[in-house]
């Protein structure tokens, strides 16, 4: 059911990891992840609104309530990712890995709707876990809490929740990494294309 599997991996792990000349810069990665999440959130916010209207179940199910903030944060996903990345200095690969974790989490828990109320907290927690796992000198939780604008205790709680949600499956193989990179890249191209098409129309 995951569409990324059908895409042949063409972005290589090394290009992203080692930042070759033609590798997307960290900002590009942040943008691509933000783009994909942005789309997801837009869609899920609609779904959540629907299910609320029809008196459906609470979108924030068991164990996922920890991520739900009281209101929409006033910072865009893109700016938030860039902020985390620029202060915590995690490697760009961690941003991709964080995206992988969120995807895994929603696969495991379909009732977890990544929406505008929880996407920031989920993202922060996922990036932090990825950095702890992949980076040689990760920042600690206290630091991430400050950067992300949540309390240390809350972030610790969310960390545990997400680890359990992922069933501690935090490894990302190079093949998976490549697939996700390809997916993000393709989504990026697609949305640029859409934007481009839009402006073409304007020109006409």
């Amino acid at each position, binding site marked *: *059911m*995951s*569409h990324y599997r059908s895409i042949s991996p063409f972005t290589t792990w090394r290009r992203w990891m080692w930042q070759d000349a033609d590798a997307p810069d960290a900002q590009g990665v942040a943008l691509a992840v933000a783009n*994909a*999440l942005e789309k*997801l959130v837009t869609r899920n916010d609609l*779904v959540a609104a629907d*299910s609320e209207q029809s008196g*459906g*179940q609470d*979108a924030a199910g068991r164990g996922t309530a920890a991520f739900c*903030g*009281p*209101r929409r944060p*006033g*910072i865009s996903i893109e700016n*938030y990712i860039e*902020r985390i990345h620029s*202060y915590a200095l995690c490697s760009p690969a961690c941003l991709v890995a964080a*995206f992988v974790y*969120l*995807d895994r989490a*929603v*696969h*495991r828990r*379909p*009732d977890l*709707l*990544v929406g505008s109320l929880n996407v920031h907290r989920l993202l922060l927690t996922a990036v*932090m876990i990825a950095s*702890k*796992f992949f980076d*040689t*000198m*990760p*920042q*600690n*939780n*206290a*630091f991430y809490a*400050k*950067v*992300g*604008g*949540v*309390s*240390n*205790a809350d*972030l*610790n*709680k969310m*960390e*545990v929740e997400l*680890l*359990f949600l992922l*069933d*501690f*499956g*935090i*490894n990302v193989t190079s093949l998976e990494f490549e697939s996700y990179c390809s997916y993000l890249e393709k989504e990026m191209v697609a949305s640029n294309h859409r934007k481009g098409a839009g402006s073409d129309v304007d020109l006409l």
Partner: protein
Amino acid sequence: MAVAAPGQLNLDEFPSWGSRGVDCFEKLEQIGEGTYGQVYMAKEIRTGEIVALKKIRMDNEREGFPITAIREIKILKKLQHQNVIQLKEIVTSPGPEKDEQGKPDGNKYKGSIYMVFEYMDHDLTGLADRPGMRFTVPQIKCYMRQLLTGLHYCHVNQVLHRDIKGSNLLIDNEGNLKLADFGLARSFSNDHTGNLTNRVITLWYRPPELLLGATKYGPAVDMWSVGCIFAELLHGKPILPGKNEPEQLTKIFELCGTPDEVNWPGVSKMPWYNNFKPARPMKRRVRELFKHFDRHALELLERMLMLDPSQRISAKDALDAEYFWADPLPCDPKSLPKYESSHEFQTKKKRQQQRQHEEMAKRQKLQHPQPHARLPPIQQTGQPHPQMWPAPGQPVHGAQPQMAAGPSHHYGKPRGPSGGPSRYPPGANPGGGFNPAHPTRGAQGGGYGSGPYPQQGGGRGPPYPGGNVPGPAGPRGSAATSGAGYGTGVGNYPQGGPYGPSGTSRGPNVGANRGQYNWQ
């Protein structure tokens, strides 16, 4: 990212780990303790099954969930083998725990996550240190084969254990041996490109390449440890009991000869080679010192204790060694004797009595120094072989200290970090009048234990706090009270993970000054 429709059935395996609470288990007894947290023997209420519960300490708020614990869980989940300890599940304790005064503490997730392991009765060191214990040759072959089988499985799955030693080899009463304590373990890639820390593996079992500063290494590091254990089983005591890193290297060179470009191409390029370059060349003496071993055993040992890691035998090849296919053959684990179960763990009171007993025994030993007296294996002839090494003039077998035959887990006492550069502080314990053959035996911990996470940043810290220094724990016999069985050594648990100090903050206030986004 795929989104499942609300309410869609999740066909994946579910419920996941952590969905059950620790109240599914009845805690029976604490069987280990350390900074990592306590280890309990417990009974699953529903099935009556006995398990070991290892608590993950969560009280360092700044670090959150310990990265080492994440790694250990991740690795254990991947490994499913009859010779690797099984992590059954992870459970949480519901709600905030209360502190001793009964006040709920502020930290919601403090100390409330447990790893559930299958329960094992003994560990190899504890078993070997039982008074009067003598392994038979088929028994040693049986344990060695299981150890190698388990390790081969790890290596095939690209996991380095990095803390192979007797107290991390758990043995049940069916004679099964399982590798435990993957707190230092790590995935590796076959090309050995990663920069790995060389502050791993308990000193006595640490291979020369790590002592010489290698940061690119592979499965051969574990095979050195296996060689040390193998020789220890046959010899009756640890063969390379160094007190610190330089002394450890010296002991290795005295046994295996000094490395040079002939027997170990590239050794002179090792980071710390020049610091430890031996003053004079020494000859390899493995065959000479262990000439009482049988031919096949010696042959295998020689190949395990190769200085050059690239020439060291692999677990797979070791399993094919003549040793395991020559008479006497390894016995069936089930045929091994069942030793007094460690389920009947002493109560604290009993333990205290034992400690007093131990104290007395120690005092007696001080008056009448006894050498190490773990017994070498029973040979086919049934005759104990003469002890060839080291100290000439030592009595061959000391009198057995008459100790209550307790459980064979190393128990209680914490040990220092295995990774630290100065695990055994020089002169930490000058030792009374006797010549300790077992300088820090008492400090060995392990089992489910998790003491030995390598120390961080500059690795300071003599591992043994003040009065607790077990030091030369005295000639054996202290098995019942020394070491830590399922022990969770006191090892400085680096919340930041073994690879680089995570505490080196780049100024945690950066967020605060630049407009924190606070939307709570």
